[in-house]
């Protein structure tokens, strides 16, 4: 049973690594520039010897855009999840360890944000502060940090009631030391799974924003934007939209399979 499960996780890891390797190697791969327009391929955008996966509606190499787009996703998704974790863990630890008013304040504020339907929150945020890599990070932090905070708060509360925390207090450790050294390392297990799920979800979200026209400004290769731009060509050149869609699916699948494997592992 475990072999089967970890096999699934392995597939997930392999999918992620595939994209990571491609993204890292992008500058050295024998690919055209992701923004270069091939006017010759324009009329026949399907896969060809020059363009293995064809070109996009503006005649740009799909493979190159996928690979360079992977750099964007694989930078933005982990960065924003990391930032969300930094904020979420801080809030969660404060609320969970200190309790009382600190907890009430943080928890109520989180409740307000968590009550928003997530996509609505992202749309309102990005539509108002404008689409850019930095703002996407801001949006993910605002939308995801309360969720992380809630998990960490629960863990911290449970851990704070344990005897080793009382023991630490008895040796006059500061609150900061207890939160960071005593509590935080023990949140690792449950959070690791959550990180993977959130990475997958953030990838979807970045794609969705791109699809809604709220993604990175052109001509940056943006997977969601690629699907959206190729959407009108679907009936004529289905591959143009389905390939970037497949790229997003494979990466999200990778994160989700890994999360599944991690959560099932002992």
């Amino acid at each position, binding site marked *: 049973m475990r072999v089967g499960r970890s096999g699934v996780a392995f597939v997930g890891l392999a999918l992620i690594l595939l994209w990571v390797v491609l993204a890292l190697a992008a500058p050295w791969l024998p690919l055209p520039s992701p923004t270069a327009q091939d006017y010759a391929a324009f009329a026949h955008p399907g896969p060809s010897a020059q363009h293995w996966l064809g070109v996009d509606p503006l005649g740009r190499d799909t493979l190159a855009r996928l690979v360079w787009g992977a750099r964007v996703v694989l930078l933005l998704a982990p960065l924003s999840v990391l930032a969300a974790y930094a904020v979420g863990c801080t809030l969660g630890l404060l609320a969970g360890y200190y309790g009382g008013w600190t907890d009430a304040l943080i928890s109520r504020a989180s409740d307000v944000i968590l009550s928003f339907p997530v996509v609505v929150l992202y749309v309102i945020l990005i539509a108002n502060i404008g689409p850019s890599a930095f703002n996407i990070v801001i949006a993910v932090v605002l939308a995801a940090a309360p969720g992380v905070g809630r998990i960490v708060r629960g863990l911290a509360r449970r851990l704070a009631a344990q*005897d*080793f925390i009382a*023991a630490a207090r*008895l*040796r006059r450790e500061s609150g900061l030391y207890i939160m960071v050294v*005593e509590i935080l*390392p*023990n949140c*690792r297990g449950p959070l690791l799974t959550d990180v993977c799920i959130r990475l997958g979800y953030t990838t979807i979200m970045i794609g969705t924003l791109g699809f809604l026209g709220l993604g990175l400004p052109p001509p940056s290769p943006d997977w969601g934007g690629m699907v959206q731009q190729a959407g009108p060509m679907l009936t004529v050149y289905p591959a143009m939209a389905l390939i970037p869609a497949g790229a997003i699916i494979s990466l999200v699948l990778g994160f989700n399979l890994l999360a599944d494997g991690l959560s099932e592992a002992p």
Partner: protein
Amino acid sequence: MTALLAIRDLRVEYASARRPVLALPGFSLDLAPGESFGLVGESGCGKSTLLLAILRHLGPGGRITGGAIVFEGQDLLTADAAALRRVRGGRIALVPQEPASALNPSMTIGRQLMEVPMQHQRVGRAEARERAEQALADVRLPDPRGAMARFAHQLSGGQQQRVAIAMALLARPALLLLDEPTSGLDVTVAAAVLDLLTALSETYRTAMIAISHDLAVVARLCARIGVMQAGEMVEEALAATLFAAPRHVYTQALLAAMPRLGGAAPRTEAPPGETLLDVAGLSKSYTVGGGRVRALEDFALRARRGAMVAIVGESGCGKSSFARVLAGLQAADTGAMRFAGRDLAGRTLAARSPREVAAIQMVFQNPETTLNPAHTVGQPILRALRKLAAPAPLPLAARLAALLEMVRLPAAIGRALPRQLSGGQKQRIAIARACAGAPDLLIADEAVSALDASVQATVVDLLRHIQRARGTTILFISHDLALVQAIADEVVVMYGGRVMQSGPAARLLAPPQHPYTAALLAAVPPPPGAPRAAIRLRGEPSDPRHPPAGCRFAPRCPRHLGKLCDDTPPPVQVTADGGRIACHIPLPELALG
């Protein structure tokens, strides 16, 4: 008479990551109809596996790889599913450990009970209802009809255990399997459950296999006892024989570790020092679920330097609350707590001086949560040395090694992670950690109650060693009166947040005693053949949010006087030998027992 149950060379394995673990290498047992057999052994020795193997229901990964289990002439190992279902619950019934989780939380008690006769005796609903209600009455559950409509969580632990017993007995099985029937219950409640089981087995003549880590419990229930170690029965004998003349060295160790009333160890020889801790009128309350719980009320205690003072009482009596207030984890509401001349009552750790913090340290109850699973076990000791201990010329590593040596652990263990340690080892680490700052007072809050008997004994020994060798005052908190009476110099008996009785340990055994003290003593299972104490308490501790106006113990007191006890807090009476008893019954009358 043929055997009801014959187990031959039973071999059980559990799948594991590397290779299968042999839980039972070849177990054999014969049981006659109506016979009761007790199996004792420490956790992980395979005794629960045996019970589940008999019912052929080993959890995931468990596999019976050899042997035979013949029950009423049928080999259960080859029985088909239908036959197995007839046996389970019908002919062999299990009283599970921890009834709280063994009862379905979303199904009424009544429906869970009715399932048994409906399944095994093919009776209708009405008939099943009647039988279920009768069964609840048989296990002496108050208000059986009302209980039918309730859910498990609405019952207390003792009541849940009675329900589980009723469920097991409903189909009139030929064999009853008892899995740790009293673990998790308070001593007075456990005593009542044991009484009930004894009575029932006499009434129904049901054969019984009872397993426990507590030799006293199986001895109380069963005529024949097996001692199990690592999957093998190392000794088997009649109860009286086993106690009188244990043959196997393991059995001897078990017996030696078993605390016995009156079997007092040598007391502190050191002359009583000056008063280190003087607590008076201490109160502490919490808000829980919309109500106020008075965890401590007018609490008083006095400890001399170098003495071992014990606080004893059942769960929720307030003993741990006191420990936390004393340690400074929480502040008291009112009262005085003078420690080495300074009042600490209203001051938590943040308000105490470094020296005051270092002076009072604590060893916690649960070995599983006392160490941070993310750090090596040496880390908290090192931190304590750095934060609490006075500067010393020796390097930290050497001081760590010395502390580990003091708790009789090898120095190398400091680099291990908690999960690589046994429960006893963890508690030793906890003691070393607490001693790093050379405290004047060490609080041991139920520090040994989660440990197996033999381990418990060695940890207690260690504490007494520290007490003697370092002159450390020890506040020993426990629910086990027998243990406490054996090791402590002074004992405080608590109930419902109040002190019922206090005084020198030795004088607890003889009247005049508080009725609660007497009940606690009576609840300690006596060795086979010894006379049984008759005092049993009614019901269970009342809701701490709504305590009685008078004596806290009044609702359960066997010597309840009436309105006076209910409405008026009892006076504290001082006995001739320095004991203090809070009771309305005059001392001479109390002395009559």
